[in-house]
């Protein structure tokens, strides 16, 4: 019976001790840097999130965006001021009624499978969205007013809308608006999952994907159509690049400090000191655009069908203290559903709610949750005050699971609310959402135009309206924001949206503005963040110093 195996524990302990004691690399005399851009070399990049799909039309994870632009490109991109810059298009015109957008296209672009990029290809991509079940979310929001796409000539394509919609331009600059070779669209066996069989026009070609481990890209030698926002023209510097999926932040940071990878994204606040203390490494941060990471409170289910309980939940959390504990002062607190970098952000919401435990308890008493059970949770009619949060593992980033536990402890301690957190696989989470078996839905979106996020999350027809909100006035405000090209009108419309969900209805508990971190060896040059979106950029401008 010699079958005792303390090996598991001993291995873990040994790992613990060795990694705790591993020395930071010695400070060399004269810190080297990447020098001037040079061609050649292989880069290994550790990323936190494995994409659930490589088809850009199906793009859903902000953390996967840095992979999309290696292989695929869109008609437009953003400059640093939030404006649009031509990419695969050379320019566009809007008709005076705002209902027709005409794009002139580059004529020198080919897909990596040899197909030519032209107006017919653009039409094929948009038509793909009209296939039932392909991507209902995009169809319901970004393309909801699309009438048809017309091929005027090979270098000209016109989008006809049923009514004015400014989100069309944003859509054509997002991963979902990226252009896939029409041949791939027709022939790919597993179109929705994507992978090596989907050809794009980008500076790299995806040639190998090992699920759970890594994805590998090689340079596209014919590439010569970078947008003006890129730092160079012509083919990419790197010969090839491997992205390794390392979910554990300590493993990513360890891989960087030990030299197994040259660059990592997603550095938790607790590990930042390890990077900054090492002269061989650099650290940079970018604040994302789009919607803030928030808890959306499901008003379709009890007990959140009661406004007072929603308000109490929000008052029960001291968000600043929780963020300080989990992110050690590196997180930017969010006060609205829209991120603080967006032009539509309503600053007047700041410090208008939250963190008042006495108020939370008063509201709950008033709502009838007066009794307490043995564990200290509030009870009404024999039912515990329980709310459920279901987190889907592929979407958990920035230690949001730890943050959930901190909020869980906070609402229990200050108001006796039982926040039940379950971290599950995507299938289970999808099922829970479909069954309405949740009261808290967590989400952040890195849309460059926050309006897209609001339409998806809060419009009564939004694809991820998970909180049962159906309000005609709210719908109208969201639609107005989407219809007008006038910034002042849009700001006013979105101010009303924010007032409704934050101040009036307490449907949202905003937590923090998502940010990305890049830590790299000093040998890596040209790594940075996408303008406006604030997420790590593609590998196009990156070089490896000798």
């Amino acid at each position, binding site marked *: *019976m010699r079958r005792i195996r303390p090996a*598991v*524990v001993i291995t*873990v302990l040994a790992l613990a001790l060795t990694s705790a004691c591993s020395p930071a690399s010695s400070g060399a005399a004269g810190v080297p840097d990447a020098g001037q851009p040079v061609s050649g070399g292989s880069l290994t990049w550790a990323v936190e999130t494995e994409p659930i799909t490589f088809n850009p039309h199906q793009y859903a994870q902000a953390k996967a965006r840095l992979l999309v632009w290696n292989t695929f490109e869109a008609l437009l991109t953003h400059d640093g001021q939030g404006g649009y810059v031509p990419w695969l298009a050379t320019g566009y015109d809007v008709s005076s009624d705002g209902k027709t957008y005409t794009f002139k296209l580059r004529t020198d672009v080919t897909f990596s499978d040899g197909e030519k990029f032209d107006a017919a290809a653009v039409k094929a991509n948009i038509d793909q969205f009209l296939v039932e079940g392909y991507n209902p979310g995009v169809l319901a929001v970004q393309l909801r007013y699309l009438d048809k796409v017309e091929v005027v000539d090979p270098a000209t394509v016109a989008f006809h809308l049923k009514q004015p919609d400014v989100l069309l331009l944003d859509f054509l600059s997002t991963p979902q608006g990226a252009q896939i070779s029409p041949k791939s669209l027709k022939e790919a066996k597993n179109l929705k999952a994507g992978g090596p069989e989907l050809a794009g026009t980008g500076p790299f070609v995806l040639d190998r994907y090992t699920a759970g481990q890594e994805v590998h890209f090689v340079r596209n030698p014919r590439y010569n159509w970078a947008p003006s926002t890129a730092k160079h023209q012509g083919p990419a510097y790197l010969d090839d690049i491997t992205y390794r999926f390392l979910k554990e932040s*300590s493993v990513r940071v360890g891989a960087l400090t030990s030299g197994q990878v040259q660059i990592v994204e997603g550095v938790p606040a607790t590990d930042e000191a390890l990077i900054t203390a090492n002269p061989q490494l650099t650290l940079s941060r970018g604040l994302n655009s789009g919607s803030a990471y928030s808890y959306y409170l499901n008003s379709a289910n009890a007990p959140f069908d009661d406004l007072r309980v929603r308000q109490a939940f929000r008052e029960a959390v001291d968000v600043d203290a929780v963020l300080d504990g989990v992110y050690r002062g590196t997180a930017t607190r969010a006060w609205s559903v829209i991120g603080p970098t967006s032009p539509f952000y309503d600053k007047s919401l700041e410090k208008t709610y939250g963190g008042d435990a006495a108020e939370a308890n008063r509201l709950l008493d008033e709502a009838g949750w007066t009794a307490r059970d043995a564990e200290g949770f509030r009870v009404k009619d024999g039912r515990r005050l329980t709310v459920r949060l279901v987190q889907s593992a592929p979407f958990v980033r920035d230690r949001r699971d730890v943050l959930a536990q901190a909020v*869980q402890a906070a609402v229990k301690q200050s108001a006796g609310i039982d926040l039940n957190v379950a971290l599950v696989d995507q299938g289970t989470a999808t099922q829970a959402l479909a069954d309405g078996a949740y009261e808290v839905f967590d989400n952040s979106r890195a849309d460059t135009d926050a309006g897209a996020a609001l339409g998806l999350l809060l419009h009564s027809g939004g694809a991820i309206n998970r909180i049962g909100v159906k309000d005609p006035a709210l719908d109208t405000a969201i639609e107005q924001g989407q219809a007008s090209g006038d910034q002042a009108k849009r700001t006013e419309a979105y101010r009303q949206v924010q007032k409704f969900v934050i101040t009036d209805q307490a449907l949202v508990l905003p937590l923090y503005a998502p940010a990305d971190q890049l830590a790299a060896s000093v040998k890596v040059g040209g790594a940075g963040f996408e303008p406006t979106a604030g997420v790590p950029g593609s590998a196009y401008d990156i070089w490896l110093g000798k």
Partner: protein
Amino acid sequence: MTIALPRPESRRLTLRRPRPGIAAALIVLALVGTAVAWPALFAGDPLAADPLHVLQAPSAAHWFGTDQLGRDVFGRVVHGARHSLSIGVAATVIAVGAGILLGLLAGLTHRYADEALSRGFDALAAFPLVLLALLFIAIAGTGTTSLIVAIGIATLPHYARVVRAQTLVVRQAPYVTHAVAFGASRTRLVLRHVLPNVLGPIPVLAMIGLGEAVLIAAGLSFLGLGPQPPSPEWGAMLSEGRGYLHIAWWASVLPGAAVTATVISLTVIGRHLQGRFEGRHQ
């Protein structure tokens, strides 16, 4: 290795000075036992978070420091003893109970049923324990109950095989044949004459098996398949703390040390009992 048949002299109590290893193991088990029975004696609320004091090093106020949510690691380790131990004990009880039943059944029924049951035990035993438990959890879902049942099923063949082997020996023993000759009923035969005499090695086996069960439970919890956060379970604490190893070793190393100390102690005692049972320490 095989379990030798009980020798009469091994049951005799002998007065000897306990060896230091045994003494240390007993002390550890006594502490763990007290923590299981009465955790409040040592520590306060294991779930009380304090976001202003996260990842603090061990100090007089927090003997084992605080974790990523500012919870007292010592308090969590103490309260975790109940979670981790009760999973191990419950799983072992299931395994022993089912093992005795199935072992007896295999040993007493006719040849074909015995063959079928024995090959079943072989098949179960051929899988690594953790894999078998994972398989069960994949079907039954995560949570404390399914973790207990999973480990119970995975460790059942140990006991069943021993009971079957003992039964085969005992059923040939003269006192059984005599009882048959005296016309004892089948039930009486099994309960009065067979069962008491096949159980000899089981307590020793169970002691060693308990250590193993605790270890597997901690391992599976480490993978997130056991009690869900914020429950203070040793394996889960190890898992939660590992993201902070660079800056706060205490949040994961100390729960790990608790698992290690408990499992080693259980094993040392189990081995000692096994030695005495086989008469090796005479």
